[in-house]
């Protein structure tokens, strides 16, 4: 009995010694990266990710590590993951475009409706969290203006307050919508990155299907449907085909 207790205690001590808090891991991995020990830094970041944590900075640093280790596919994957958390990060956009320069496939994107891209650009100029703060501020302003409208001393002030309140509530709703849209896109797992250096896209979800085109590491795909181990994908230029799940990784 005594021995069992001792053993148990020993095990607890051991596990507590091994387990580092995510904060310590984060600090040590940053330190390793600064010493150009990218592989070791990568292990640290991956450990944090395995323990269920996520953040834009974590994904960004993971992307940097993979880039330094010359794994362009993985690096793009993590940059895209970070981008889903915050599409407005400048560093991220810079590094992603640089990493994309190293991927082989050049795909002409089909241009979208100008208003849509315009709205999207406004949406992506702030992160979801920023938009939600804006929404709260606008709602609070609306409440204040409504009170002003009801209890204002002069009729002029009441009039102005009324219109401002309407504008504020609309802006608040828009900000909330942008924020929710970003969150929705994050939960929507409908894009993927090609991980294999060379991957064949086929016309049907089996190996006998005709090879439609070849994709290389780092190319972004949109996932449409799934049959078994095969995924139907669409490229940015509108071409479609089936690819095996082993070759890609969902963002």
């Amino acid at each position: 009995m005594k021995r069992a207790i001792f053993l148990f205690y020993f095990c607890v001590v051991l596990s507590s010694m091994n387990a580092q808090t995510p904060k310590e891991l984060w600090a040590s991995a940053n330190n390793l990266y600064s010493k150009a020990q990218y592989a070791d830094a990568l292990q640290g970041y991956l450990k944090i990710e395995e323990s269920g944590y996520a953040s834009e900075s974590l994904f960004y640093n993971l992307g940097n590590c993979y880039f330094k280790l010359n794994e362009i596919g993985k690096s793009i994957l993590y940059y895209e993951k970070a981008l889903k958390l915050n599409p407005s990060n400048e560093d991220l956009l810079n590094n992603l475009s640089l990493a994309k320069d190293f991927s082989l496939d050049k795909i002409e994107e089909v241009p979208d409706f100008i208003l849509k891209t315009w709205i999207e650009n406004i949406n992506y100029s702030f992160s979801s969290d920023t938009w939600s703060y804006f929404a709260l501020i606008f709602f609070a302003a609306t409440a204040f203006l409504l009170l002003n409208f009801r209890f204002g001393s002069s009729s002029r002030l009441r009039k102005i307050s009324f219109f401002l309140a309407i504008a504020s509530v609309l802006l608040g709703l828009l900000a909330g919508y942008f924020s929710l849209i970003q969150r929705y896109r994050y939960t929507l797992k409908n894009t993927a990155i090609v991980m294999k250096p060379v991957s064949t896209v086929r016309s049907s979800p089996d190996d006998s299907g005709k090879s439609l085109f070849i994709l290389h590491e780092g190319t972004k795909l949109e996932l449409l449907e799934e049959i078994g181990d095969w995924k139907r994908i669409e490229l940015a230029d509108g071409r479609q085909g089936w690819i095996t799940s082993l070759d890609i990784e969902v963002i």
Partner: protein
Amino acid sequence: MIGMYLKRVMLLLGSVVISIACMAQGAFTVDAPRVVELDESFRLVFTANSEPTSFNPPAFSGFDVLAGPSASTMSSTQIINGKRTESFQVSYTYVLQPKSVGKFTIPAASVVIGGKGYTSNPITIEVVKGDGNAAGNSERSAQATGNVSGDDIFMRMGISKGRVVKGESLVATLKIYTKVPIAGFENVKFPTFNGFWSQEIETPSNIEFVRETVNGKIYDAAVLRRYMLVPQQTGSLAVEPSEMICLIQIKSPAGGGQRSVFDDFFESYQTVKKRITAPGIHIMVDALPPGAPATFAGAPGGKAMSAKLSRDTVQANEAVSLIVTISGTGNINLIEAPKIEFPADFEVYDVKISDKSSKTNKGASGIKEFEFPIIPRGSGHFVLGPVRFSYYDISSRKYLTLSSGDLELKVGKDKGGNSGMSSSLSLGVNKQAVKSLTNDIRYIHTGLSHLKRGNQFFVASFTFYALLAIIISLFFITNSFLSKRIERNRDIAGVKNRRANKVARARLKTAESFLKQKLYTGFYEELHRAILGYCSDKLALPLSDLSREKIAESLIKKSVKPDLIQELLSLIEACEYARYAPDPGGVEMDKNYSRAMRLISDLEV
């Protein structure tokens, strides 16, 4: 004039002295075969290039002196195109015969030429037990056999090392050994060295035979070709056999009736063709071990390196060169230029490479110089290098890295260029765009990690909804609070007004009826009573105690406005006055009534 003349004489004298010195320059050499047979007599010749005053022969231990010394003098004068060359030789010749088999050294002989002593080198002679077919007596053996066997003449390819690492140089020597006289060669096929970088380092134009012993037999040996080989592949590399046809002179076989008298008298020779082959050989080439440093320049061998700048202080836009010199044994000319990182502001031009390499029997060695011409464009203090160079050390079987120290370069401000414009105001400097040297990703985020589990977004989080609920509820709470307060405020004022009016009306009810009836005295009596009654009720004073002073004092205590108090007091005074005064007219009554009404209402509110 005299000075000039003197000078000329001096010059003349100088040249004469030099020529005498040249004449007097003595040399004393010895010449003898290196290998002799036991019963062979051979010649040993000491040669001096001018007439010696004395000759001191060495002691010939191990040899019998059959003849000598016999001195002979030879002089020749040549005039070619008016240029006269003279040569003069004195030689002392001994004929010796060895006493026994072994190696014997004949010590140095010495001569005195022009009062100066010279000694020859000691010479070692190997004495072997011969088979009577020594090269010197080859005529006899060829005569005896009439044909030439494989033993009499053969070729051999010798290599300096049998096992090398890739890139290590070795020397291959193709030699011919013969006992018979050779008249010429035909169809010479030298080997091709597949898998090697090869270079001929010795191609003698006239073949010189030297005596050598092979398996105890004496041959005349000569080097046909000497190659330096650098293996470029690993594994067992084969050197192909080389072959040629030798034209050998042998004596015509004796006997046969056709021989004339003259044949016996004049020895007749005939030429025989013989194909000889040097067998192929194999050379084991090992791969260089893994783990070569990045600065490995691709050649093994012992090396030394130095790096220096042609000047260590320059002005901007002035050229300066960094010179890296690599020297050592091994294949120097295969070394690539070391990679040097210069500051980005430097313009670097193509490397100038010069090499001085010598290839000897022992292999190659030399010096290779890399000159990096650079032009610094900006001023400052720069540290170049260190220049690193790695090589594979064959003896220790390790990669060794040489490193020069830091090279410091001080670059001053540009002095040239606008010197012509120094008088006028400079128009400013040429603006340069900030050049991107390379692209790299931006650095990692090192600040707060913002690590979160589960929901990453604020928008749908509990906090967000809670804040939203707080905003909405705050709105409704504030709204209802404000509306209630306004409602209440409005009510209190109304009630008070209404009650005050009511009280005033009730008090002044009788006075009003008197007013309507225009009863002058009655109206004022009633008005006076009503006001005093109101004051006694309001101030809780007994009617008997009421005086104007008391009323004023109490009202001040109740902090009623002073003008109201004044108004009240004047109204009371007016009432008291009117009771004892004649009626002045109807208008005054109405005025006083409304005054009283208003006063009571105001006091009440």
